[in-house]
């Protein structure tokens, strides 16, 4: 009797402790990164930028980890989403509407990849490269033939509140805060949006469709045997994922103050790095934890990159090289560590 009772309680207890250790790891990471930033003199703008890109990290998490689909479409969905958002803002639409359309544009890009994969049986990697290539032209067309659209003087999510926020900040904390006002506003606004989007995504992944999508990535044969259309799950999954890339593009466009056709360059590598950094540092287990880890990974990526820039005093032209180095470190370090550990064990044995 007692044996059954303890067996019944065990999973719940382990789930609770798993949650607690995840939160502990998160707090520890926040303290370390915070100390790092103040000691290394990293501008808090890096956090805002990380939050802007965070949803693109979630895209990569959704495609690679949830759907088990090697999908590079994020490189195309991101600039298309940004372009759609920018052109709508320039044409006088509200930033919220523009961002919603950014989502739709990204989702359609994801749908293109899914349909190529399903109809022509071309594997995801190749299908998404085809879509990225085509997406470049589509982005140019969305931007009415221009390769760059400035948002100067337009009403964006940030510019709408920036004046009022700056006045309030200076009133409350004094004039030295004036310089950081835009950065702080970005962190608050983007943090809020990312939080809301993660909440909706969590709810979605915990629905029946979400469950079927999660199962599709792990065992498509079983999903078919359960009477669910696994192709439909791939379509819905890729649309949701790349829609998020479109939202990220919309956020970054408003942050930078311009949309550019080459905005998505190298984004897939960055997203992968975010997912892996998050997994290594936070060791997430459940769906919710995995989502938080992907966002955290993107933040850590941007902060460490900003730190390298300020520490080495590099010009901004070197940005892609430094990105590649950070990604290499994120991917390579866990593997090197594993090899070192087995080497040590062999020495010990």
């Amino acid at each position, binding site marked *: 009797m007692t044996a*059954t009772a303890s*067996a*019944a309680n065990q*999973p*719940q207890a382990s*789930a609770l402790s798993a949650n607690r250790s995840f939160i502990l790891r998160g707090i520890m990471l926040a303290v370390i990164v915070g100390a790092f930033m103040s000691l290394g003199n990293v501008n808090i703008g890096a956090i805002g930028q990380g939050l802007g890109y965070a949803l693109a990290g979630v895209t990569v998490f959704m495609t690679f980890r949830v759907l088990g689909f090697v999908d590079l479409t994020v490189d195309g969905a991101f600039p298309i989403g940004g372009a759609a958002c920018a052109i709508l803002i320039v044409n006088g639409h509200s930033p919220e509407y523009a961002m919603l359309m950014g989502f739709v544009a990204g989702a359609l890009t994801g749908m293109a990849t899914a349909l190529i994969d399903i109809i022509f049986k071309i594997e995801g990697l190749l299908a998404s490269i085809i879509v990225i290539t085509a997406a470049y032209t589509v982005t140019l067309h969305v931007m009415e033939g221009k390769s760059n659209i400035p948002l100067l003087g337009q009403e964006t999510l940030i510019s709408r509140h920036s004046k009022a926020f700056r006045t309030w900040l200076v009133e409350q904390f004094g004039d030295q805060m004036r310089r950081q006002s835009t950065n702080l506003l970005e962190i608050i606004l983007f943090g809020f949006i990312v939080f809301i989007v993660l909440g909706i995504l969590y709810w*979605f992944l*915990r*629905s*029946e*469709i*979400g*469950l*079927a999508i*999660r*199962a599709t990535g*792990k*065992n498509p*044969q*079983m*999903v*078919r*045997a*359960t*009477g*669910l*259309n*696994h192709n439909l799950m791939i379509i819905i999954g890729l649309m949701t994922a790349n829609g998020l890339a479109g939202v990220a593009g919309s956020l970054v466009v408003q942050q930078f103050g311009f949309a550019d056709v080459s905005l998505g360059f190298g984004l897939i590598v960055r997203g992968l790095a975010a997912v892996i950094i998050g997994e290594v540092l936070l060791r997430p287990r459940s769906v919710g934890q995995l989502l938080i880890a992907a966002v955290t990974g993107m933040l850590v990526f941007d902060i460490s990159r900003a730190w390298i820039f300020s520490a080495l005093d590099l010009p901004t032209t070197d940005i892609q090289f430094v990105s590649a180095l950070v990604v290499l470190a994120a991917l390579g370090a866990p593997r090197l560590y594993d090899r070192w550990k087995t080497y040590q064990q062999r020495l010990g044995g």
Partner: protein
Amino acid sequence: MLSLDQVSVTFNAGTVNEVRALRDISLLVEQGEFVTVIGSNGAGKSTLFNVISGAVQPDSGHINLDGEDMTYWPEYRRSHDIGRVFQDPRLGTCPGLTIRENLSLAAIHGRSAGLRRDVKKGEEAWFFEQLERQHLGLEHRLDADVALLSGGQRQAITLVMATLTKPKLLLLDEHTAALDPNAAEQVILLTQQLAEANDLCVVMITHSMQQACDLGDRVIMMNRGRIEFEIAGEERRNLKPADLIDRFHSLQDGTELSDAQLLS
């Protein structure tokens, strides 16, 4: 009731690798009937299952289930009415998801997935009851990751999942072949239990002559894409594994001889 009407399947048609996996197979399985299928490797047993479940399209012939022609239905649509358990215990359940999530997925069976919560409060008692009947203690581990379970446990859960929403037909593809004798016995017991409780059409492939004699109402022997013989009624009730092995060998010798003749 399942009926196959002159179904043929050919792989790599027109090439040197042409294989006629099924040749004009006609088969009728009545409501509540339990049929075991035996035959050597390459006899067409798995192709028979694949063509029924829709993983493989027939070149000719028709497949009916309860009077509905489903020859041209896609695999997932047929799965609304067909429960399947595979030889590989890893294929039937989804690792990375909990037992509860796997069962919830199976409970969607037969309708389309919506935006309702994946794990519903009301289903808990139902799942508990289904698993409790197996006496494996899995009902207390609903939140355990399926990847942590043994092959036998996973196969038992797959069986429950396959019959959860009472399909019209249950296909068992050597579903105890990868299990140790103890687990295999457990799963066979569970199979009988579920088949009787739900009054299902069951078709089971097996390589165990003992199982073929112990289980079901009819034995079908397949050879080179054809149904070589059927044993039913009185003869089936008195059937012993040794008889079956004898008949199996007589066929095998025949094929070996013809192979040898072909090569000489």
